[in-house]
Structures are given as structure tokens and as C-alpha cells.
């Protein structure tokens, strides 16, 4: 997975799998890959998306109504024809309940089978992550943690011990959602993580190529974009557009964001210590 960040300015899109249908969702994810995604976060929808804003809540609701389940999700990953690393983003209860294991092992095993490379679990802080970390180690998957603007001191240490793949830097407080401003908190957060030997991807609120550029220029190894893409899916669904048209728009948006991230990465000074 680390190779995804090799070129600098990695672009990491998120979509809720199955939104608004299994088939359309396949097209959309593949469009993002064509648009330059370096890694894709695939959302497995959970009925109580505690960390999400209204946009992704809408996606989750549509996907659940269209019949998405963990098994269908794994099938989806198998069916996907893309060439970038895939990460599963979901809530811990779905991981915990899956399969015969008393704990997350069954879910991780199946994820490994279908080629997923890691997890982002918004309601699983480092303190509670022991069993999932173990299972990930057993099957060779990464476990990404989210660093919030409020994360400091001991909590950072604890997280650093357990994280792998990349670290998800939450650009500002609040739930997910596209915003027009870029938070000052982003720079501060990146500074706090300067020592970490792991790629830092910044998410929450990135909406345009210009945002992406500024974030990448601030030192992020990658940018994570969810709501701005889900907005395109939702619009297409509401306006009853053909799937191809929405896929094209997603691809275009992906290109804009990827280009922005790359421009930002190019503006970065060389690191002082290699």
C-alpha cells in the first residue's frame, strides 16, 4: 500500500459501496480509478454512521435501501476491476459481528481473500483496536487510524504504535462534509506528525483541486475526498442521470483533485532529513 504514496500528492477517494445500486457503484469506483485515484476507500454502509455528515449519511441510507450487506460488499470488491490498493471503511460493529469468529477475525480473513489491503474504522480508537490490529497482522492488512485536531500527547504515541498503511489526518473538528475553507488546524496537525515515518493523508472537507493543492502543499502525502464525490453520485441519482454521465463527472472531478494534489506536492520543499 505504501507505494500509493510514492509519487507524492496521492489522491484517495471515498465512495459508499452500493450507492445508489450495486452496478452503478461498480462503475463509479472504476471511474475514480481512471481519474487518477492512487488508493480507494470503499465504504461498507452501517445503519448508525456516527461520524458522518448529512452527505455521507444520505449515501449510506441509499446503499442500505438498495440491499448492501457485508457479503455483497466483499462480492463487490471481487467484482471490481481496478488496479489500485483498496481499503474498507466501516464501523466496528459490522466487523465485529461478521462470520463465526467471536471478534473481528472472520471479517479480516474474508477482506484479505477479496484483496482488500486495509481498514479505516471511525468509531475504533487505538485503545479499543487490539483485536482488530491482531487480525490485521495475521492476514497482512493495514489498520489506518484517524488523527483529530484534538489528538495530542499520549494519545498520539498510542496511535503511532498501532497504525499501519497511512494515517488519516482529520482536517478539522466535526463530521465529514465538503467545505469551502481549508482549516488552519490542518497545518498544525501535520506539524505534530512531522516525525512519523508513515504517509499522512488529509481528509474532511476537501472539495476542489485548489483545496487539494493547498493541503498537499502544506505537507500532506495524500488527500482524502468523500463528500464532494458523494455529492456527484447523489445529484445523479436525484436527477435520474444515466450512470455513464455520473461516472464521467466523477472521473473529471477525480482528475481535478489529483492534479491539484500533484501541484501541491511539487511546491513542497525537499525534506530536511531523508
Amino acid at each position, binding site marked *: 500500500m505504501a507505494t500509493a504514496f510514492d509519487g507524492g500528492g496521492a489522491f484517495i477517494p471515498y465512495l459508499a459501496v452500493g450507492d445508489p445500486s450495486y452496478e452503478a457503484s461498480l462503475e463509479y469506483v472504476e471511474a475514480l480509478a481512471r481519474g487518477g485515484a492512487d488508493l480507494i476507500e470503499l465504504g461498507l454502509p*452501517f*445503519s*448508525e*454512521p*456516527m*461520524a*458522518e*455528515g*448529512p452527505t455521507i*449519511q444520505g449515501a449510506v*441510507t441509499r446503499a*442500505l435501501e438498495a440491499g448492501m*450487506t*457485508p457479503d455483497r460488499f466483499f462480492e463487490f470488491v471481487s467484482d471490481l476491476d481496478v488496479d489500485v490498493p483498496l481499503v474498507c471503511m466501516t*464501523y*466496528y*460493529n*459490522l466487523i*465485529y*459481528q*461478521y462470520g463465526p469468529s467471536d471478534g473481528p477475525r472472520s471479517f479480516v480473513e474474508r477482506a484479505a481473500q477479496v484483496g482488500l489491503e486495509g481498514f479505516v474504522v*471511525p*468509531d*475504533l*480508537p487505538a*485503545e*479499543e483496536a487490539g483485536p482488530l490490529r491482531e487480525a490485521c497482522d495475521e492476514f497482512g492488512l493495514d489498520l489506518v*487510524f*484517524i*488523527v*483529530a*485536531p*484534538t*489528538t*495530542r500527547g499520549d*494519545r498520539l504515541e498510542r*496511535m503511532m504504535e498501532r497504525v499501519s498503511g497511512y494515517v488519516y489526518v*482529520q482536517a478539522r*473538528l*466535526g*463530521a465529514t462534509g465538503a467545505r469551502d475553507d481549508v482549516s488552519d488546524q490542518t497545518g498544525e496537525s501535520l506539524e505534530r506528525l512531522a516525525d512519523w515515518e508513515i504517509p499522512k493523508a488529509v481528509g474532511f472537507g476537501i472539495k476542489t483541486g485548489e483545496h487539494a493543492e493547498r493541503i498537499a502543499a502544506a505537507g500532506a502525502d495524500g488527500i482524502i475526498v468523500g463528500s464532494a464525490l458523494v455529492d456527484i453520485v447523489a445529484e445523479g441519482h436525484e436527477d435520474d442521470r444515466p450512470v455513464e454521465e455520473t461516472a464521467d463527472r466523477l472521473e473529471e472531478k477525480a482528475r481535478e483533485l489529483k492534479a491539484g494534489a500533484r501541484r501541491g506536492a511539487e511546491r513542497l520543499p525537499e525534506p530536511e532529513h531523508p
Partner: protein
Amino acid sequence: GQFGRYGGQYVPEALMPALEELEDAYERYVLENEDGFMDEFERRIRNFGGRPTPLGRADRLSERYDSEIYLKREDLVHGGAHKLNNALGQVLLAKYMGKERIIAETGAGQHGTATAMAAAHLDMPCEIYMGRTDVNRQRPNVFRMRINGAEVNPVDIGRGTLKEAISETMREWSRTVERTHYVIGSVVGPHPFPAMVRDFQAVISEEAREQARAQLGGLPDAVVSCAGGGSNTMGAFHHFVSDESVDLYAVEAGGSSLEVDEEAGVAPNSATLSTGDEGILHGARTTLLQDSHGQIMESHSVSAGLDYSGVGPELAHLVDEGRVTPVTVGDTAALEAFHRLSTDEGIIPALETSHAFGYLHEAFEAGEDLGETVIVNVSGRGDKDLETVIEETEKRGLESAPDMSVFETGGGI
């Protein structure tokens, strides 16, 4: 932060520092009475909240069931339910912590009104999140919150009830965590909430235990309490947990049936302890109503305050341990119990509370022996439920229902 295998802190990273700060405050102020916090809490819950509440003998129920039935009267607490014990404790704690603003979720509106009252009393700005469906069906409670000066923010997500309101309040907390305290309404959520809310509610069993010794000359044989999230339950049980001779019954809402409709994602009950299984919801590992994939199911009960898909982790643990016996009472039996307590004892109970009395009745009818002396926790009063009860009673054609034709007749006397 653990009760056996339950509990924990399953929340977004952004909230973890706030939980650590709260844990620290909980230990210092609540557990160690730093700056006299607990003294002030006890003074205010007495002088503002109306504690202690009485333990009174239910003469006609005692006769009916041939036992000594005693009622712990939380319906007499300011606001009409046990909810203020917790709300006042947490708002006061927020003040000690230097927070500037209170947020809370509410379902039926009881916790929202209690929090709004506590916040007005302690001069803290307060915003309540409430599902749109609940806003519309609990208008009087919305009025009460507004009149006490709180903002009420309707939540237009999902079914628009308690589950969605909790999730939304968590989101709002993660946006404003540095200056805001989230007053959670039951013994649920991430640590330290379940322990802290229990400690504020434990005044119920602390008083009841003393009162039982003074008035009955000893401990009761059983304590019966309704259980939704479980705050009145844990409050009524806590100080009896180590008294092994005292049986503890948590009465859940059996709704219309204990069967579930997995396809629809709906449980026609809120019998989490009795029918649910382990999972993670709203920050804690506990017992849940969920489908085979782990998606949370909508619960249902005629009582809005019991209508929740989870339950407090400590209660789940005590059930696992065999210390607490979970039982269920359906909608119809609860309605009948509502009317029975009202006409027998002159106490109109909340529909939540009616479940506890429904169990008392069913146990007696089934010839089960709850013991000679039973304390039932009257967790709240039923004024808020009048319209629902009348409607649901008529729909079912219950015999116990009073004739309401007084409104229809136009003639003389």
C-alpha cells in the same frame, strides 16, 4: 471503563480527548468530591429537585397481590421523572469543568426537559437534539424545553427518533467538543458515561435501601424497575447489587411481539436484554437489537422512553452474571397496568413505569413468588402520556379503560 465484556469507548478519535477530560473530571469531582462538587450536587438535587423522594406503601396493590408492595416515587422529582438526577449532576459537572454550553439528545423529551431545567437553573446555554418524528409527537415536552430557554434542534435523519438523535448529538459534540459538554441521558454511551450516570442515579437505591431499613425493618425481597437505556434501572438497583437476598428485575418493553422482522430491519419490541446480542453502538460494547449482519434494528414500544435498540453495558453485564433478571411486558399489559395503578393508588405512572407494574401483575397471575416485600421504582409520572394512552386504550378496547364520553354528551346533568 469495563463491565465484564461490555463498555469501552468506541467513538471517533476527535471525541477521545473529551472523554479523557470527562473521565478525569468524573474521578475528581464525582468520586473524590473535589471542590465540594458532590456536596453541591446533593444540596441542589434536594432543594431544587425535591429529593429525597418517598418510599410509600401501595395499599391496594399489596392487598391485590398479597404482598407488601412499596413504591419508590421518582415521579415526584422536579420535572416528573428520575431524569433530573442525572441531568442536574452532569450540567453541574460541566460548570465545574468550565464548559460553556450544554447539548443533549432526547427521545420522548423527558431527558431533554430535565436537561433544559437543569441548564436554566445553573445558567448554562443549552441545545437539545430531537428526532423530527419525536418533535411532532411530543409537542408539550418541546414547549417545556423552549419555555425553559433551551434551543430544540429537530433531527431529520432516518426514522427521526432517539437513535438518530443520539448519533446527531455525537456529531455535534465532535464539532464543538472543546467548549461543549454532552449530557447523555442514560447509562449508555462511552465510558465514563455509563458509570457516571449510574452514580448520579444511584441516589434512588441509596435512599430506597435506607428507607426500607427504616420503614420495613430490613431489605426488600425484590426490586422491580423498567429498563430502556437503563438509567432508572441502574439507579434503583445499584445499592442493592451486593445484597444477594434482593432479587432485581429489569422489565423491558415487549412491544407487540418478541419476534423480529429481519427483512424490514425492525424489532416490534425494545427487549434488548431479553432478545438482543452483543455488539457496539453509540460508543459502547453492549447488548443490542441488530440483524444478522450487525445493522442496528429499529425498536418499537408504546412507550417512547423505552424505545431504544441498545441498553447500558453495566446492565447487560449484570444480566450475563445472573444478578439481574430480565423480563418483558407487552404494550397491552403495560397499558392495563397504567390504568390499574391510576385507579388503585391514585398515581398516574409514565408508560415506561407501567411496564414495571405490568410485570408485577403478570408474575402474580402466573403464581410466581417475588417475595414478601417488593419495591417498584415509579420512574416517572404519566401526564405526558395521556393522549397516547387514551388513543392506544381505545384502539385495543381495553376493559380497564375509563369511559371518556363526558366530552361527547351535550345534554344536562
